[in-house]
């Protein structure tokens, strides 16, 4: 394993995380960490356990063993809601979008959720009684539309803002997932294969956006990605998984040269 396995002051830490699905050990004592202002990538072949790791970190999956820390807080047993309330947001490999909402409504909802989180309130719908009163209930304001449109345009979805997810291509749906994450204003963002379905130009644009996020807003980014070009171009640190185990970690340059990584991706020949 290479030099920088653990950061000095990581914003996010997962230690010895294990999870089993029936007879399959999906993760086996995997430890990773991610620092604010950096992009930490999680790579590996299909079935390596990358998305499962994101599930454990975000609370959508409950690990059998191991610890998840956000800053100094142990969130290992906290719900996904509580982790979201600690300024964590994520995208899904299979987009989890709402057929009934337009692109713009998705972004507005995520922005409102983020605002409640920042106000220190878990985004319950406790105010739903007020929302029943026609003149008090809050429809989408002009300011919210303007703010949402800015983000939507930035991600290249401007022409589709009044469409629903069923009218978007798969790539656009993934971008909308990213937009949701960004709209929450979260401090920790987990991206699960955001570039799948995008063409090269769109992928490069997305890469620049994620880089800006990390550096300018000091966001902790964990990126699960199959596109190694993108990973090596933008990430600060790379963790490599294979068959549920952490096989190597280090800088992109180190991982590009790593024998273990090459073996995991390309396999071994018999004479080796």
């Amino acid at each position, binding site marked *: 394993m290479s030099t920088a396995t653990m950061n000095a002051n990581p914003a996010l830490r997962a230690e010895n995380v294990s999870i089993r699905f029936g007879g399959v050990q999906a993760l086996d004592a995997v430890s990773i960490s991610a620092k604010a202002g950096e992009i930490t990538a999680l790579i590996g072949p299909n079935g390596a356990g990358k998305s499962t790791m994101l599930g454990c970190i975000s609370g959508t999956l409950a690990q059998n063993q191991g610890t998840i820390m956000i800053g100094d807080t142990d969130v290992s047993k906290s719900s996904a809601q509580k982790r*979201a309330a600690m300024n964590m947001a994520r995208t899904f490999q299979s987009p989890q979008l709402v057929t009934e909402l337009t692109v713009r409504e998705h972004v507005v909802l995520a922005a409102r959720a983020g605002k409640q989180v920042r106000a220190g309130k*878990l985004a319950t719908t406790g105010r739903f009684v007020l929302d029943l009163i026609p003149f008090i*209930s809050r*429809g989408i304001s002009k300011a919210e539309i303007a703010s949402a449109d800015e983000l939507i345009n930035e991600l290249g979805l401007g022409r589709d803002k009044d469409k629903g997810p069923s009218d978007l291509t798969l790539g656009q749906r993934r971008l909308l997932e990213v937009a949701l994450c960004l709209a929450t204003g979260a401090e920790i963002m987990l991206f699960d294969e955001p570039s799948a379905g995008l063409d090269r130009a769109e992928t490069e644009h997305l890469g620049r956006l994620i880089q800006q996020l990390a550096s300018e807003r000091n966001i902790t980014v964990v990126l699960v990605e199959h596109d190694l070009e993108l990973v090596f171009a933008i990430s600060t640190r790379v963790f490599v998984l294979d068959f549920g185990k952490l096989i190597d970690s280090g800088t992109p340059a180190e991982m590009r040269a790593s024998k273990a990584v090459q073996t995991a991706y390309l396999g071994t020949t018999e004479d080796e």
Partner: protein
Amino acid sequence: MLSFAIAGLAVGALYAMSAMALVITYNASRVFNFAQGGMAFFLAYCFYYMGNPDTGLGLNLWLSAAIVVLILGPLLGLFLWWLLLGKLGNLAPLTKVGVMIGLQVALVAITTLIFGHDPVYLVYGPVGEPSVIFSVFDVNVSNEQFIIIVTAAIVALGGYYVLNRTMAGLVTRGSVDSELMTVLTGTNPKFVVASTWAIGTGIAGLAGLMVLPKVGLSPGGFANLIAASMAGAVIGKFTHLWRAFFGALILGITQEVLVLYLPSDGLLGTALRPSLPFLFMVGAVLIYSQQKDVKADSQKVEVAAVNNAYEVSLSKYLNIMRNPKGHWDRYVGYAVLVVVLVGIPILFNEYWTGLLAVGFCYTVIFLSFRLVTGEAGIISLSQISFAGLGVIAAAYVVNNDTWFGAANEVPILVAMLIGGVVAGLVGTVVGLLCLNLGPLYAAIVTFAFALLVDQAVYTRDEFSNFGSGLPFGRPVLFGMTFDTPKTFYWFGAAVMFAVMFMLWALRRSTTGLVFATIRASRVRAATLGFDIYIARVGVFALGAAVAGVGGTMVASFQLVAFPNGFIMTIGLVWFALAVAQGTSSMGGLAAGGMTLLLAPAIFSEFLPERLADLPVLLFGLVAINMVVDPIGINPNLRAQFRHLAIKMSGGTVHSPSYEEESETSVPAGVK
């Protein structure tokens, strides 16, 4: 004690057989058979017709039973599978429940249309007149009890053996998880599922015949059997045969043995035994909600629901409604609405205007489905009970002189609000108990709750006033008395539009956006930080309160609070009608509320009395139509109207991307 235990064993054996039928069909098809009561009712009537020497064929009772259980039952199961049940596998939970409730309603209506709707109370089962055949420790055991216990044991052992020890059982269990794998084993998965429906319906028929001497032949008579067998199925997590069997068996024994220990009157004496199926279910739900596997399984159902026919249908609808052209059509709709609303009291007499006024009241109750199902995605079969509880609470307050002063001094409007609050509070408790797990658990627990209210609350004389209902009055507001059908028409319309206005506000608010997210993806809602459990319980309680207020409006028009108008069997018809119209559509729910009143009235004008159940049959059939039209009739009509408006405005409509993908994502060779 032993005699009660043996009687309980026989009752429990009946419940257990019926529970096994539910588990067997669910295991193979992932469809919960809410129509099992209707199937058993139909088959029991066939048995009665075949065996009755006076009005039927007069066949030997054993021969009649054999024909029903071994031939008619399986044929009915096969026919329904071919027609309907085989098409349900991949649909959303709401669609499945809606269709099955529609089938239940339709089967009962068909049975009464064929055989007549007068209940028959004295009916023998296959055994004929009961007689004692032997004694155990001085306790007599009747031939009926003996046959029931032995039959249940044979069915249980046979079912266990087939499912767990034979290739057929393995294939049956495997076909649920992967049809493709079943194909690869050389078995036709359709054959497997069809066979289980045939067997399940046969067993349901068998339980139906054996319960006949206890409950007679009436649509509501089978409700206890079904509620108890559902409790067994819940205990068995819908898939474990033995757990379901013993859960139902213990329930039956407990019910009978409790007779020994409970007083014959008072709340405990009258309410506890009928409450047992509900209590057993709630107990099981509370235990299972702590278990990861059940939670994960219910989540799997939710996730599966995301990419289903409902979503495709909804996408098509939204695709049309989001088209930038043709939005002028809504003004046409508003204009027609105003003309009709104002025209009715002018053009129609007091009778028809009054009927429409009650239609507004029922629409308020139906709008509670929009909150509970349309917004929060909860399948509730107890909205009718919340309406009934609202009625009882309001009438009790008005007629009781201990709480708010002398009788008849509490203003009716205040009583209506109290009715809503009480229904809301009860709704909070039911919501807390049933919303921990997936949609199917909620549907079944609310079904059992509705039955509990029927048997433990409505039957109490202080609420039912010895069957004649407590007197209730009309509201007074700013000096207006609403004491004629025409004035009440405007009161009903005002309340209905006020509730609609509230629901409109809710949908456009943060809460509305959150509920849309919860319906589509609970995982997405959770990762955005929304506490979906609290929100769902809150909206469930609010739905109960709205239903309660609607119920008090009905009582107000009728001037009597008559809880028997709010029983579970009627509630199933309401549910069928609401989901068929579209629970997200306020126009659809208004159409449902109106149809509920107008269809029977119109049919009774033109058709003979023996066809009185024809509207109910139609309500059931429109719910069954959800197989091809999962979002409901009204949204589809609305989309067609908008489509026309778009074309008239020179626009075009494209297919949504989901549809294009679904056409190409089917692997080659998989049909």
